[in-house]
């Protein structure tokens, strides 16, 4: 336990990371970067889980983090496969090029 690091610091860091991730998803057009941003948001949430688990003294928060990491791994596998498929079809991974569902 690092002294001087309280719950509020952890939450602020988590919030900043989440915001960065969200902005990355909304602003960037490169699919890989968007993916990385999503990872950022997931890990911000993980950080909050761990922080709460520590302050509450309960292990369930930490258990959740493992689940989230596992899900994120699966997601990455599928997501990267999708990105590869898109790239093969279109020769680009710019998500704005994939706007066929425009109404």
């Amino acid at each position: 336990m690092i002294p001087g690091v309280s719950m509020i610091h952890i939450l602020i860091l988590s919030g900043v990371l989440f915001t960065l991730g969200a902005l990355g998803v909304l602003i960037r057009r490169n699919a890989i970067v968007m993916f990385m941003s999503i990872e950022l948001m997931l890990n911000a949430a993980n950080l909050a889980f761990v922080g709460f688990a520590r302050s509450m003294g309960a292990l369930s928060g930490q258990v959740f983090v493992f689940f989230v990491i596992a899900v994120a791994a699966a997601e990455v596998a599928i997501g990267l496969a999708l990105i590869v498929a898109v790239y093969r079809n279109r020769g680009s991974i710019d998500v704005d090029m994939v706007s066929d569902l425009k109404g």
Partner: protein
Amino acid sequence: MTADTLFSLAPLVILFPLLGFVFNLVAGRRISERGAGIVASAAVGLAFVIAILQFVALGLDPAGATIHIAEWIAIGELEVDWALQIDTLSVTMLLMVTGVGGLIHIYAIGYMHDDVRFQGDPSRFPRFFVYFSLFMTAMLILVTGNSYLTMFVGWEGVGLSSYLLISFWYEKGENGIGNALAGKKAFIVNRVGDLGFIIAMLITFWFFGTLTFEEVFSEAEAMGAAAVTAATAITLFLFVGAAGKSAQIPLFVWLPDAMAGPTPVSALIHAATMVTAGIYMLVRNAPLLELATVTPNVIAIVGAATALLAASIAVARFDIKRVLAYSTISQLGFMIAAVGIGAYVAAIFHLVAHAFFKALLFLSAGSVIQGVEHGHHHADSAEEDFNPNDMRVMGGLRTRMKVTFWVYLIGALALAGIPPLAGFFSKDEILADASHVNPAVYWVLVLAAFLTAFYMGRQVLMVFFGKPRSKAAEATKESPATMVAPLVALAVLAVGGGLINAPGLLPLTRFLQETLAGIEEPEFIAAIAILTTLLALASIGLAWLLYGRRPIKSRAPDPLQSRLGPVWIAIRHRWWVDEFYDWLIVRRYVSMARWLAEVADERFLHDWVHDRVIALGYVRATHWLASVLDLRFIDRGFDGLGALTRRGASGLGVLQTGYVRNYAAAVFIGLVLVVSYLLLS
């Protein structure tokens, strides 16, 4: 064997003709002519045997029996069982119907063999016996029924088979439709009578609550004076039915036309059996007639009037069968009059005796007609519209048809009432009873009897005496044995038939007393017997003076024509009864039917109601629905809905940019909103 065992055989009397009917209906065409005829005759013969067994049983147990066959109708209070009433009255009829009917069946085998060939359609032979068996079945149902309703079934059945047989050669006759019209006339006139029967049944059920003869009679007897009005009404309507079936005024016009049927039909149905059903029915209802007030007088007067009217018409007929037809109506009038004066036994006696000699006369007439027809073909004469029934083309047949002549003479003398033949006794019994009860009726009947002897004398003289008046008559030969044998048998019956109720012994009266309780034994009045015999002889003598001494020439007018003047014209035109009915009923009916067809149906129903109101209204209503309601409201409503959907969709479509980031932003904003709502509330 006990009486009950024999009584239990009674249903067979109906069953045998029914089986004959079914057999000939199914297989009649596949077996020979003779086969079909023999099956039908054997069915009647077996029925006759059963009838004799019933007679024997009545000898053991005179009270008779009711043989229950099945429950038939049970609706509320109305309960009618199908049961046979075997008593002395019905067995008398059974014996007569099956006995005479059997002889006529045998005769018909020979007669129809030639008839179908003259008429040019031999394949119709089995059909004749199908109808004949149907008639026998219905007639036996009529005779044995123990209730008004079962009797009515037979009553309608004989009417149907009569219709079928009158128009047997339905495509022949006047203008190729005459026979069919004759059948139709018989059927319709009989319906009028049947309506009377039905009304009588309704009153009976309404008043007595039952339709079984025995129950009605016992209740009527128990009620006594209280039932007089009902009995009068019932018997009056029953008499309407009897007048239809037994050809009485005013419903007699169908019987002469019914001669369009083949001659065995005339003999069996329109002389011996069916037309006597009315008399049988009235005698069956004797207990009610005894109670009724007005009816007996009405019946007696109508019967006597019919006897005289028909006898007068018969005098001026030239068609051999029409003479016999009017004679039948006249004799039925005698029987009806006998019922009216309460001489029930005399009525039944005359009914049976009349069946013998009138069947004989008709069958002999058939033999004569067919003989002349043969002669016509043999002589190969080219006479146009040759009518083998016309007595003016006959003459001199005495030597050419010896047997037929003798049996015809016996029948004619029996009908004329010459002792000791059957007709003498039976007619005399009626006259003797009438002289006590109703002198007016008596004198009318005596006059009718006088005319009877005259027209029979005229007929015999015209047909058998003198010289042949045509080549056909010259070439006439005797008929085959199947036809002659029944004639001889019937001639024997016509001679000896009087014995069944011979004065002094009165076996028929004794026999019927078992059923018709309280009837008196008729007395034999010698004065009346001598009077009627002398009258008959005088009448025949008169006929000889007119027709025998100097036989009429082929195309000469009838000697009576100049002597009777206007009376001849009247009787020649049958007192214009047919014309009167034609004017009174047929023409009104036709014009009413035409009015209904042309105005009520064509103009009102068709042109106005149908075309104008319904069709046009429908067209207008649908037009309004289509152009106003549908196009303006419903279609526009749905068009608007469609347009709205389309516009809303294109508006919402703008939101769908296809850019992931936009969707992500929407999810994000939505999430923020939901979370902030949850946190703040």
